[in-house]
């Protein structure tokens, strides 16, 4: 059941603004705001926009942000399992303590603990707020990814970017409110029951001519002129029909969108084109053919451009963190692929004065176990990996309203359960909305008789980390 099938003309016009390069339509869009159109925030917003760096697969906090003496001392030895007896795991039957892949040391003035695997991040330790008591409810990728993005695991609900677009509207009428670069699945950018204008626009950063940034973006006629003629005829047919029917909001929307789509064929490739960037900018992000960090560097630079142009919520997904085996080889490689792009983005935002009103969030859907895993049953210990762990993991935030250099939250002696400063996904969502000036209990949508929220009936703002 949806609440927005009878789409008003105004809503329709808003919808048409939801794409790239709608410049010519800007004058039509007189009120491109979400339903909370009064535009008044619930509280003073600290940031205007969010960039979410999603590390899909579950990065290992034990190798990046925290070392436990208990585990280090027992590296390779059996430890007692803290798991409930009902919980099954495969390949961890031996419960061998697994020490860190590389040294983790204090960094910056704050002394925040960061691994040697993240040399770039180590340099900006005092700009980030490390959350070591993150907690989520489900150990499976699909469910945990859903929960991270939508608050729940099974039901189909709006993604956080969609909620924010709905709550705050767009900053730039010619751009969508929510863009997801290399999106991990449709539900992570879906608008659920919210109006479709709030759904994320999935974008691919093309590394060659074959990839299109948006599907179906390439004209299939033999020339632009011919395509234009074809669409001209379609438009005449559409016009005739709408006159006969004396108006139809959906059909008007389709007509507007067709013009917008035509322009997107030109404007989108321009948007993702980085050929006019300076060498310094490319270097900052680690962009360059043959470089490990090239792909993520391009994605992060694009994220900055989109964010700077007023996209409320930009997500960049970097996957490959699911290290069930051979973590000693695979994790350092992934760090090389991501560290410089991520930190380049932070530095670029800072240089441009944007970091003060932007929230950057770095997180996976869960963390990994302090004990080792070997699903093959035959690998030597130094080829082991780690299993999923939702009980505790690490994330960090940077930007406006967040205490830089703060490490918040602590886990037990082996790094399994949170003992202090627990931040559940719902709390993270509540805090993110709070920084945007939104009271998470008031951002609601009524569906089958009930007011739904991103935070469901949960969520507490983590005031301790707010600057």
């Amino acid at each position, binding site marked *: *059941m949806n609440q927005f099938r*009878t789409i008003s003309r105004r809503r329709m016009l808003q*919808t048409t603004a*939801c*794409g790239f390069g709608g410049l010519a339509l800007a004058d039509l869009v007189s009120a491109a705001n979400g339903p909370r159109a009064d535009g008044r925030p619930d509280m003073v917003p600290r940031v205007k926009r969010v960039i979410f760096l999603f590390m899909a697969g579950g990065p290992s906090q034990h190798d990046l942000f925290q070392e436990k003496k208990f585990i280090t001392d027992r590296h390779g030895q059996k430890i007692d399992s803290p798991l*409930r007896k*009902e*919980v*099954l*795991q*495969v390949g961890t039957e031996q419960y061998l303590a697994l020490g860190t892949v590389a040294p983790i040391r204090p960094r910056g003035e704050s002394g925040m603990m960061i691994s040697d695997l993240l040399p770039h991040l180590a340099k900006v330790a005092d700009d980030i707020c490390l959350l070591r*008591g993150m907690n989520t409810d*489900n*150990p499976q990728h*699909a469910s945990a990814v*859903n929960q991270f993005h939508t608050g*729940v*695991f*099974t*039901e*189909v609900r709006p993604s956080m970017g969609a909620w924010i677009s709905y709550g705050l509207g767009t900053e730039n009428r010619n751009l969508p409110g929510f863009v997801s670069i290399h999106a991990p*699945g*449709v*539900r992570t950018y*879906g608008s659920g029951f919210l109006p*479709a204008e709030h759904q994320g626009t999935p974008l691919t950063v093309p590394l060659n001519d074959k990839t299109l940034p*948006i599907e*179906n973006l390439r004209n*299939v*006629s*033999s020339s632009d002129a011919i395509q234009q003629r*074809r*669409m001209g*005829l*379609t438009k005449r*047919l*559409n016009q005739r*029909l709408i006159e006969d*029917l*004396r108006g139809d909001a*959906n*059909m008007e929307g*389709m007509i507007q*969108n067709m013009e*917008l*789509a035509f322009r997107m064929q030109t404007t989108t490739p321009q948007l993702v084109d980085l050929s006019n960037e300076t060498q310094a900018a490319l270097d900052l992000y680690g962009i360059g053919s043959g470089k490990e960090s090239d792909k993520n560097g391009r994605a992060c630079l694009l994220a900055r451009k989109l964010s700077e142009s007023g996209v409320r919520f930009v997500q960049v997904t970097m996957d490959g963190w699911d290290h069930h085996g051979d973590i000693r080889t695979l994790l350092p490689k992934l760090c090389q692929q991501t560290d410089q792009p991520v930190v380049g983005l932070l530095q670029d935002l800072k240089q441009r004065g944007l970091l003060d009103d932007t929230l950057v969030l770095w997180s996976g859907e869960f963390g990994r176990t302090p004990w080792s895993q070997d699903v093959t049953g035959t690998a030597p210990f130094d080829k082991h990996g780690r*299993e*999923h762990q939702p*009980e505790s993991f690490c994330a960090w935030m940077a930007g406006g309203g967040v205490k830089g250099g703060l490490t918040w939250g602590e886990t037990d002696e082996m790094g399994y359960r949170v*003992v202090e400063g*627990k931040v*559940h996904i719902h709390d993270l969502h509540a805090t993110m909305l709070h920084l945007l000036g939104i009271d998470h*209990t008031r951002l609601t949508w009524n569906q*089958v*008789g*009930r*007011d739904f929220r991103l935070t*469901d*009936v*949960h969520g507490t703002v983590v005031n301790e980390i707010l600057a």
Partner: protein
Amino acid sequence: MSVSVARPNRDVAPRSLVFSVVLGLVSSVAAQDQAAPTQEQLNFFETKIRPVLVTHCHECHSSESKIVQGGLRVDSRDGLLQGGDNGPAIVSGQPEQSLLIKALRHDGIEMPPKGKLPASVIRDFETWILMGAADPRVAKGPVGVSAVDLEEGRKHWSFQPVRDPPIPAVHDASWPVDPLDHFVLARLEQAGLRPVADADRYTWLRRVSLDLTGLPPTPGEIETFVRDNSPHACEIVVDRLLRSRAFGERWARHWLDLTGYADMMGTSNSVFAEHAWRYRDYLIEAFQNDKPFDRFVREQIAGDLLPAASPQERAENITATGFLMVGDVEIVEPDKAKLEADHVDTQVIKIGTAFLGMTLGCARCHDHKFDPIALPDYYGIAGMLRSSPATHKIPFGVWSKLNSTELPETPEQKAARQKLEAEHAEKLAAMKGEQIKLETEKKTVDEQLAAVGASLDGQVAPKLGGESRSDSPTEKTSLTKRRDELAEQLKKLAPRIQHAEFFASKVPHAFAMCDGAQPTDMPIYIRGNPYSPGDVVPRGTIRVASWDAFPPIPAGQSGRLQLADWLADRHNPLTPRVTVNRIWQKLFGEGLVRTVDYFGTRGETPSHPELLDHLATRFLQNGWSQKQLIRAIVLSRAYRLSSTNDNAANKVDPDNRLLWRMNRQRLDAEALRDQLLAVSGELKPTNGGPGLVLEEPENCGELRQSGVNPPNYTHRKPRTGEEFVRTIYLPVMRTSTATHDNLRSFFDFVNPAQIAGQRNQTVVPTQSLFVMNNELFRKRAKTLADQLITDSPQVDARLNQLWLRAFSRPITTAERDAALTFLAELEASLDSQDASTRESLHWQELCHSLLASNEFLFRI
């Protein structure tokens, strides 16, 4: 993988949003007080307990809280004893039975949410409860706990018995065709409105064809109808459409939206659900054969428990229970108690939504916040489903599999199947023979290579066949080449053999329900958590919609049969109303109750309550026949109206709730793709069968029976001709859109994790890009163009044919002029190829232009 216990995940909005259930004021608990506490006990409370409660709990659980979380207040003794949604927080003298202690230990519930309190504090609480929980505090204001008031609840319209209202009188007696038109016109006249004019015959024919079959009329069908001047012309069309298999295909897909159907089991790892298609095919047959809806309900809930007269009927009955199996089941869940509870939950939700229009899932964790549905109602149904285990853990790893049942076969089916298996076995044997042959040869070559290698190393030259070899380097090269060839062949053969072994049995199975060994009542799971069992409740159903006590469930039975009978009983106030409303929505675009999946107190009230009951009554009188109801509706005057706007009516009723005109709809994903194929003449009829192409080894992941992860599926190699079958037959994936055809992901196809009787209708620019540039449209335009060129040499006839096929009506003069101008302009701009290629290209552009237009994409 480890799991934490589910946090309450489907709680509902703040309690301050009060509903039609009653707040029972609790004063009786005080009577349960023991002897007056000693001063020492009170001191213990004041020093050890009260400060902790104030500091850590009062913010959310006291009279000062903005919202009292979970209905629990801890600022008085009564509050604690009475408890909240989960039941009492403390049981005096019994710390182990006290929820408060469990919560403090973070055992199932975690309080305080931000982190566990020190162990010493938890011990203090245990001691305090053990001593009798001395507590001098008296409640400020009422300590409320919700209690569902069934009598009050039954006053809600949808729980009232279905009535047979009298046909209302109308001023314009010449307008109505069917009795239902009287109800529509009476409401319009009351509002001072007039219905708009009827749609023309072409529009009506296209509308009814698309609505009933998801396909447009062919030019031949159009011609027959417009020439038929008999008064029965419309009936002839409707009866033809209702008889077609296309009707079954169209309406089965509507039903699938209520089931969570996919060809994948859960969202993780693309584990294939190889038998799911049988349920889909069952639905197509059921709709096509107009299976009475009460029978349809019974089979889907308890088909396995129904008597059957033949193996086919038995197979059908078993397959029908796929309704409860095909949803999103997270079979990788490592906590099997949680998996069971979650799967039962999706089954309860599905039954509630599909048949009753109720959000039963709310009552998993607490009494429903808006509707008179309590925890025991939920667990009454859940107990039946839990008595029929639907998943089984596989012996290795963490995964479970869905229950599947072998289907009985007729002797002919069995013979055919065994023949197939014999052929398969022959092929497998041949492959294995080949494997042995290759291995033997490879072994020889390996030995020869070793020998050659040894001789080249300057060792004693081996005597092979009594001769010494002089050309060893060449020999080595050719042997190496041969060895590599053999290794390559063996490498390719191994997965094919594995595949053939895995799929050696062709015995038909269906994902199906089956009563377990020990059917039994189940406890309420506090906060939905299987590790916090509460009181055991008898199996039963939602009481507010019941007209009588639930019948006793015979020992050894799950109770699904009794539930099925209850759902399909003519006294059930919800099932017939919800069903006729769904049918109305599919035909008019909006339901009489617009919240088609929710008939509760927060849902919409019917725009025409008497009409809804009139339809429900007719439905029951006609033996729950869906086809008869659909027939009556599409032959009515109301269905015949044009969709043109009318300024006056639009002012009074902009949403057209009074039905002064027909609603327009953009075609859904299936109708859109199917129509494209129909118009281009490429649509290929099929009788169903598996959607997944499991017979292609490259589509299947590792097929070991005992891997850490079960075999998965990727749609790499489609089945020949799959491009041209109706969309309902294409595989439905849960996580990716990676079938070769992804139109569904752009046009509001229902996410298979969702249970929704009505789809969104979104309008976004990526759809326009799809229509403009996707090869699905491009190719159909090309085929259509070439067919038109071949079939009609004469341009005028060709244009008319194009309009008939794409828009189901003749071309107008203005359109003909526009099309001719368009073609001429293209001719001027395209000069490279020869004349016939140019003609094909021009017509392709023209066809594409029509296929991308709103008249093609909408049903008006």
